[in-house]
């Protein structure tokens, strides 16, 4: 499955997805409100303890963080030369706390659980005429379509390589797009033919009874 989730039974894993997402949202906002090198260092330590509790493989964690970590070096160096190193340390620590917090939520929560939380959280949007079940359907559709699109792209690459056109971006893109659009037509026809109807949701400003 295409997901970063690392299965486990730790207390961090068992925490409901909604709670974890709330903690992440509140925590990332608090980071900018409460500054200080000592505060951030303490937070970083606390999160590292959480990583240990969750029993996550460090290789996986570092793989996820590597691109951001590489960026932290020039940021720190810039602060050393342009402002002062304390501010640089604080900035780097803040980014680290933010990243670790985000990575622990991502690695310990199932994608399906997060989509479920999202569908629930979107219930109030019915008032604005947005149907949460349609959004959930689209999210699931993307997850199904991604491997399909990757396979199509691979097949077209092979076919154009046989013609010596594999360095030609247009010869790769156009067939992929046309094929995909044709598939979208077939897929939506098939859904309509099977009576897919999540029900219309009217925004509150249109009132009841009007389309």
């Amino acid at each position, binding site marked *: 499955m295409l997901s970063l989730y690392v299965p486990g039974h730790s207390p961090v894993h068992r925490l409901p997805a909604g709670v974890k997402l709330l903690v992440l949202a509140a925590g990332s906002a608090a980071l900018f409100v409460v500054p200080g090198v000592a505060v951030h260092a303490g937070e970083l330590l606390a999160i590292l303890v959480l990583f240990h509790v969750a029993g996550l493989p460090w290789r996986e964690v570092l793989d996820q963080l590597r691109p*951001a970590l590489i960026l932290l070096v020039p940021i720190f160096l*810039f602060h050393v030369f*342009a402002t002062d190193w304390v501010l640089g340390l604080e900035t780097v620590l803040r*980014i680290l706390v*933010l990243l670790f917090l985000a990575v622990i939520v991502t*690695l310990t929560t199932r994608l399906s659980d997060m989509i479920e939380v999202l569908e629930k959280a979107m219930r109030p949007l019915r008032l604005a005429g947005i149907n949460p079940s349609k959004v959930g359907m689209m*999210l699931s559709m993307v997850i199904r379509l991604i491997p399909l699109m990757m396979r199509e792209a691979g097949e077209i690459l092979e076919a154009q390589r046989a013609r010596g056109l594999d360095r030609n971006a247009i010869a790769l893109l*156009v067939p992929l797009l046309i094929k995909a659009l044709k598939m979208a037509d077939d897929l939506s026809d098939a859904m309509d033919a099977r009576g897919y109807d999540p029900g219309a949701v009217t925004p509150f400003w249109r009132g009841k009874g009007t389309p």
Partner: protein
Amino acid sequence: MSTRDMVLIALFAAITAAFAVFPPVQIPVVPAPIVVQNIGVMLAGAILGARRGGLALLLFVVLVALGMPLLTGWRGGFGVILGPTGGFVLSWIPAAFVVGAMVEKLWSRLNFWNLLLCNVVGGIVVVYALGIPWLAAVAGLELGQALAGSAVFIPGDVVKAVIASLAALVVKRSYPLIGR
């Protein structure tokens, strides 16, 4: 929103994600590698129009935030969104919308050059206008510094705008989706 619109939105989110498999391309003059993925942003806007294109990228960004490794180099999760380059990823939503809105306006007299303009304004100007202040804020840099660090990507982005424009023009001729 019709079932067809739903499928098209999901489809372009998936196409943008599929571009993550293309490895970064190195070209001689530009020091930074080029990733193919933001072609998906321009294509979604240019082929689907403002509303559907913007929603496709919104869907893509939501899935990245939920932890699917859909960005080039198999990255994903809240960490990327909240990190220094998160502004660039988030900017893809308004970027696709702006490309789409401009293409809709020019639809009846669309040619390579005005389509290229749409892709450059939406796919490059909007992306940098949001991504660079974000980078500066998260990393504590000055705007000029953040801009200088990102400028190496601009030539590659222009090449991508040209490719996206050529492809979207062919698709418009054979499979027009805007205005019906």
